[in-house]
């Protein structure tokens, strides 16, 4: 564990205007990427008192859904190239979305291309479900994840 913050000076953006959702035009089975985004945008960054949206770690374009195949891809952009919190952010996303989708949907989480120095190894770890399961049984990591998910409204 490093003593100081990984990124002491993140760039913070204003919260995007929340658009009131009109009636859902999709069928019940379809998954709406914007609804998913609404669900994850306020996850707090592990290091800073800002949401992933405010730090531009997540944006509306982060979520892509293929309803036919039942696949969801979430791409996020860590604030700096050597972010060691990337795996924690990935865990937060998985926990937040755990019961969100019908069981047959497959979720892949990756860092956006070019956004991390160890892109391949981070992506591999983020998508190894055994590693994810074990990490979430680690009380320290679990506590950090819970803080990111359940911190008070910013």
């Amino acid at each position, binding site marked *: 564990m490093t003593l100081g913050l990984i990124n002491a000076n993140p760039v913070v953006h204003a919260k995007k205007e929340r658009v009131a959702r009109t009636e859902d035009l999709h069928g019940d089975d379809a998954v709406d990427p914007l609804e998913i985004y609404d669900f994850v945008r306020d996850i707090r960054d592990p290091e800073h008192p800002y949401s992933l949206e405010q730090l531009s770690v997540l944006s509306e374009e982060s979520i892509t859904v293929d309803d036919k195949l039942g696949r969801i891809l979430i791409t996020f952009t860590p604030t700096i190239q050597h972010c060691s919190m990337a795996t924690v952010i990935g865990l937060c996303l998985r926990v937040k979305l755990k019961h969100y989708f019908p069981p047959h949907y497959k979720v892949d989480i990756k860092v956006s291309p070019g956004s991390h120095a160890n892109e391949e190894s981070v992506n591999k770890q983020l998508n190894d*479900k055994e590693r994810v399961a074990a990490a979430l049984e680690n009380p320290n990591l679990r506590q950090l994840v819970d803080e990111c998910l359940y911190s008070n409204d910013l």
Partner: protein
Amino acid sequence: MELSEGACELKLLDRLEGHSDRVWSLAWNPATGSAGVPLVFASCSGDKTVRVWEHAPSPSSASWTCKAVLEDTHTRTVRSCAWSPDGKLLATGSFDATTSIWENVGGDFECVATLEGHENEVKSVSWNAGGTLLATCGRDKSVWIWEAELANEFECVSVLQGHTQDVKMVQWHPTMDVLFSCSYDNTIKVWADDDDDWRCVQTLGEPNNGHSSTIWALSFNASGDKMVSCSDDLTLKIWETNNMNMHSGDGHAPWRHLCTLSGYHDRTIFSVHWSSEGIIASGAADDGIRFFVENKDGLVDGPLYKLLLKKEKAHEMDVNSVQWSPGEKRLLASASDDGTIKIWELASLCTGNGY
């Protein structure tokens, strides 16, 4: 028994509920399934328990009952379980970094030993053919070999370093005391001993036509001259060796890549098991199970192995483990993230051809 594509079907015999979290692994008790002994298997789960299931002895009923729940011992996910060859002991490996040894004492399972040593999650346990050695592996990148003196006396005889990442599975060769491990580092390692001095005698990686991502499991054919591995790279690979005379002390005979089966699963393949009759079953994160057999078409450039049958949507979620039963019937058990275990029968459709 000759099996050809389209000549068999996969029948669902039973769907077992009970675990309250994903089922990671299962293992059939090798001393059951024949001579009137009902089939028994163990399953282990993210719910931190192990369940032991027995086939109800009634000839008309296909149902299975949960005979025991092994709980309050492991404090985290139980990831792997394996019966000793005589069926008397059950080893369970857990994310709590321990391996427990259970003995069936008059219908109740008692934990008779706890093996500690791994620095973090234990991912797999395997007994050698003689039941004298137990291997374990884990995220600490090491492979441990334990000698079983008595049921409750295990001594660590070797801690094998070599893998550069998380070791996902260990599996002893079916006839020789040679250990195989596969890893997140994309390699398979072969470990053999020279007078109790264990070392890595071969590494099968990308230069050997090996996998390009995490290898989750491997399995041997009955004669032990072939092995199949499955991976996050979406392929299955068949390997072979031609020297079975390792007792002669000539040194280790190398394994080489025979063929690659790709395009059959479109997500991580978690499990593979080679039956005594030569049928390879695979289970994957695409919720499906596939069956492969050697291709006896005899075409010169034809594929060496072919798809026998596919079962898409075998489960509602990822299939984590597929295991052929011992004994007379051609049964397959599958375990899933959906918390259930399914028992299948691979049945021939044709009734002619003299069998």
